[in-house]
């Protein structure tokens, strides 16, 4: 098998305290800016009208979800690679996947809310929506595997491998779903594609959204990581006392 990793003597927080604070404040500021630009400053779309403003949340949420799952995969690979193996990567992978799942769920909800006024339906069999939905279930499965209690090293290895085999499926799902919709859907009734030429204030707003959600992701990741560390500590403390109790207090 593989060499033991030290679960306790490593970082209790992902970001230094001061950096974490700065990220948190920047997150709040950028979300404020996004709300201002998204709801007031940017003009309504010529075709879609006001409904198009949902894009300023929907697209950044999808972006953040992809970043989160990407980080999960990266962290899992770093765990699997013996020279970089550390409990840090296991926590990052788990925390990031959980946040990614929240963002994916949000993306689907917002897509549905956007679809209703624009397309007239809550759900359309659009390639992006479908593959995002599959993605949601893929990572739901990953988190279900993570939730199964086990020896820390066993759980970490199992999770890391699962993350990799789940990730392999992502491009296949995307490819097959895109192919399916382009081959079998005649002229597009719905045009889910964003107008590729977005100018001026609208582009700026979208960028602010992407920055805000990325910062929010980092901030949540930092907090979720800390929580994972603390909960591991509690487990460890409970275990130490259980060991002491079992061996009759002999040490």
């Amino acid at each position, binding site marked *: 098998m593989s060499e033991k990793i030290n679960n306790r003597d490593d970082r209790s927080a992902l970001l230094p305290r001061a950096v974490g604070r700065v990220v948190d404040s920047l997150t709040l500021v950028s979300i404020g800016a996004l709300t201002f630009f998204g709801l007031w400053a940017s003009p309504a779309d010529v075709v879609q009208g006001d409904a198009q403003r949902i894009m300023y949340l929907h697209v950044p949420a999808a972006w953040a979800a992809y970043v989160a799952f990407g980080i999960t995969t990266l962290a899992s690979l770093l765990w699997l690679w013996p020279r970089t193996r550390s409990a840090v990567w296991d926590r990052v992978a788990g925390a990031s996947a959980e946040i990614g799942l929240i963002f994916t769920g949000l993306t689907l909800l917002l897509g549905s809310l956007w679809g209703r006024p624009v397309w007239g339906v809550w759900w359309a069999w659009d390639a992006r929506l479908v593959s995002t939905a599959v993605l949601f279930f893929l990572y739901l*499965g990953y988190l*279900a595997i993570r939730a199964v209690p*086990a020896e820390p090293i066993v759980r970490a*290895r*199992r999770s890391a491998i699962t993350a*990799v*085999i789940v990730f392999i499926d992502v491009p296949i*799902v995307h490819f097959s779903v895109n192919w399916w919709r382009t081959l079998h859907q005649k002229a597009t009734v719905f045009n889910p594609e964003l107008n590729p030429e977005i100018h001026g204030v609208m582009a700026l707003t979208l960028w602010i959204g992407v920055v805000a959600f990325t910062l929010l992701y980092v901030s949540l990741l930092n907090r979720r990581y800390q929580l994972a560390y603390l909960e591991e500590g509690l487990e460890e403390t409970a275990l130490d006392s259980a060991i002491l109790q079992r061996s009759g207090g002999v040490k």
Partner: protein
Amino acid sequence: MNAFSEIKLIAGKDLRIEMRSRILLSQVLPFGAIVVLLFAFALDPDRGILARVAPGLFWITVLLAALLAIGRAFSIEQQHGARDGLRLAGLDGSSVFIGKAIAIAVQLAILEAVLGLTVVVLYGVEVHGVVVLVATAAAATMGLAAAGTLYGVLAAGLRARETLLPLLLLPVLAPVMLGATRAFEDGLEGVPGDAWPWVALLTVFALLYTGVGMLAFGPLWEDT
């Protein structure tokens, strides 16, 4: 012992157990047949929908039955600690993976043949493009068996394995389901040219999961 004889040993053992217990014949096949029948109740055979949607219904049925076959492949290892015995034997993880995947693939192939015949008869499907259909089924079966074996061992030994396996496996197999259905439709509609890209996709899926399975099965087999 070389890898080839290890694979033969494992696959032979699993298939022999299946021949004795006849779970496939006595439980999985009837299950598939009743699902095929229920689809006809749900979709009303008189409206002529059944023949058109037959490929999709067929592959959904295969997928559901495959879940049972995969679950069974790992439940035989749980009884009497057989899995511990196998681990103690010191077999190579990738050999166990390939061996079990082959046994599952053989069972799925039988399942597909019988269910396919049932669907053709009951839904009134006219068969065209046999070559494409067989190629599709072969590639899809390999993919189902490889991914199924990999996720089967992931769920085996866990408390909630019966409920966890479908949750894990169905999203992963979504592209297989999609590709195999489209390829069957194209084949039956007499445009096999459209089907080959899907067959290629199914083959890529099968190869990818076979490769990853050979690497990942060993550690998972040890840990759970």
